[in-house]
């Protein structure tokens, strides 16, 4: 250590390319891969931006998952003790508490189970495409295709009536808005929990073959926990994949030679899906952790209680990890573990489902509409810069 204090920077914000993380991350990776930063709300903490450090933080139990939200207007003072996570919110829990919830669910999302689901997903996809074809374009691909697929699938799996989608989609989206007030987020969260709670009560009386019924019957969860777990799965299960499908489509349309390669050789779809996940990394502000004790990293002392932001998007553009130019979309890129689903014990539980859905959706879409194109100039597509999950607010397409 040289003894000089590293300068505090601001968290990089603002994209220059709609598909790439803010440019500031390139500088961070090169100059200050573990950097003290000021977050947009003025709170202080750290950002790690290199692939290896992002993995290290997320795999290290000295970093806890119950973190501060750090969203503009968050009323909790930066030095106030962290409130406990809401019941069932296991993505914010550590150790045995987290394991207890995770183990109740992982069996439902195994690779084998999800692959068995593929034909059912393909059927849903085909039905949406029929409806889209009948509409004769231009249509908003997000509402007509990208959102219904994961929504229908997660509703089916969880045992949630799809007819109620308007309400839960609205509550999901509110919880992910960066400009929503603390009260608005709380309210949306509670509404979602109440909705699941009331469903669970009904399932207790008449259990069926779905995840919520299974959780009700396992009797290892309180009603509040059950509602929390259910709403978390419902939210995570449709918002993320919907944005990957819509943004992934837009990205392919913007890279015609990649799109042509994929159309010419459908066997490339597996690697194309991984590449889109890596390249687009829609968890746009990364994952936050809190140091549970003083941690020494690469000569920096991260004090207990500090917030550390692990930038998944930045790690996924790290040239020391990915061959060739990681800033270029390459559907033939040799596989290398990316960070789009996170890392460590919290790594996305629904990732195998997301893979099945993306593959089915993109394959069938490209196949069915050979002349698919944007119906507006690319720079007029409203991007989700204002959401925790990046993507598009709308994607007008025609064919």
């Amino acid at each position, binding site marked *: 250590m040289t003894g000089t204090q590293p300068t505090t920077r601001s968290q990089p914000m603002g994209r220059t390319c709609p598909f790439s993380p803010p440019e500031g991350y390139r500088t961070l990776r090169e100059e200050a891969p573990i950097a003290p930063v000021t977050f947009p709300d003025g709170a202080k903490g750290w950002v790690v931006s290199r692939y290896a450090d992002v993995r290290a933080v997320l*795999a290290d139990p000295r970093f806890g998952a119950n973190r501060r939200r750090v969203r503009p207007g968050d009323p909790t003072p930066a030095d106030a003790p962290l409130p406990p996570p809401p019941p069932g919110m296991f993505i914010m829990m550590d150790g045995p508490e987290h394991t207890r919830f*995770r183990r109740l669910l992982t069996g439902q999302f*195994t690779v084998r189970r999800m692959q068995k689901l593929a034909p059912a997903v393909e059927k849903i996809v085909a039905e949406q495409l029929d409806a889209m074809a009948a509409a004769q374009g231009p249509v908003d691909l997000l509402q007509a295709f990208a959102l219904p697929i994961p929504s229908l699938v997660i509703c089916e799996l969880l045992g949630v009536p799809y007819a109620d989608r308007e309400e839960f989609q609205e509550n999901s989206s509110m919880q992910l808005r960066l400009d929503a007030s603390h009260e608005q987020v709380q309210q949306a969260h509670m509404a979602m929990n109440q909705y699941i709670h009331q469903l669970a009560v009904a399932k207790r009386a008449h259990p069926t073959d779905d995840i919520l019924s299974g959780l009700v019957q396992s009797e290892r969860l309180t009603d509040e926990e059950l509602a929390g777990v259910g709403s978390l799965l419902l939210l995570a299960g449709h918002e993320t994949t919907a944005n990957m499908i819509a943004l992934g489509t837009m990205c392919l349309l913007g890279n015609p030679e990649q799109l042509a390669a994929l159309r010419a050789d459908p066997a490339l779809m597996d690697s194309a899906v991984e590449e889109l996940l890596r390249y687009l990394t829609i968890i746009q502000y990364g994952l936050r952790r809190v140091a549970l004790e003083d941690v020494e990293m690469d000569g920096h002392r991260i004090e207990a209680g500090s917030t550390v932001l692990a930038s998944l998007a930045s790690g996924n553009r790290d040239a020391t990890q990915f061959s060739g130019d990681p800033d270029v979309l390459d559907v033939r890129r040799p596989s290398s573990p990316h960070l789009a689903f996170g*890392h460590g014990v919290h*790594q996305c*539980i629904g990732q195998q489902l997301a893979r099945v859905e993306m593959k089915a959706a993109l394959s069938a879409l490209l196949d069915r509409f050979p002349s698919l194109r944007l119906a507006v100039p690319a720079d007029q597509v409203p991007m989700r810069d204002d959401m925790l999950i990046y993507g598009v607010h709308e994607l007008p397409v025609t064919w």
Partner: protein
Amino acid sequence: MKIVIDEDKCCGAGQCVLSAAEVFDQRDEDGIVVLLDAVPPEEQRAPVEEAAARCPALAIEVLP
């Protein structure tokens, strides 16, 4: 080559199955990794090492 897994660490993410389906599977009840072959043939080395590298919970150890 010999594989040792730590079930307690496993978080059921299934990366191992995606990388080397002939060597790893997951239990239906809780998604925890199941070793189908603890001493796989040499031609499985690359996928097995990939599985170990991908495992988010560092639950897979490959011994020479």
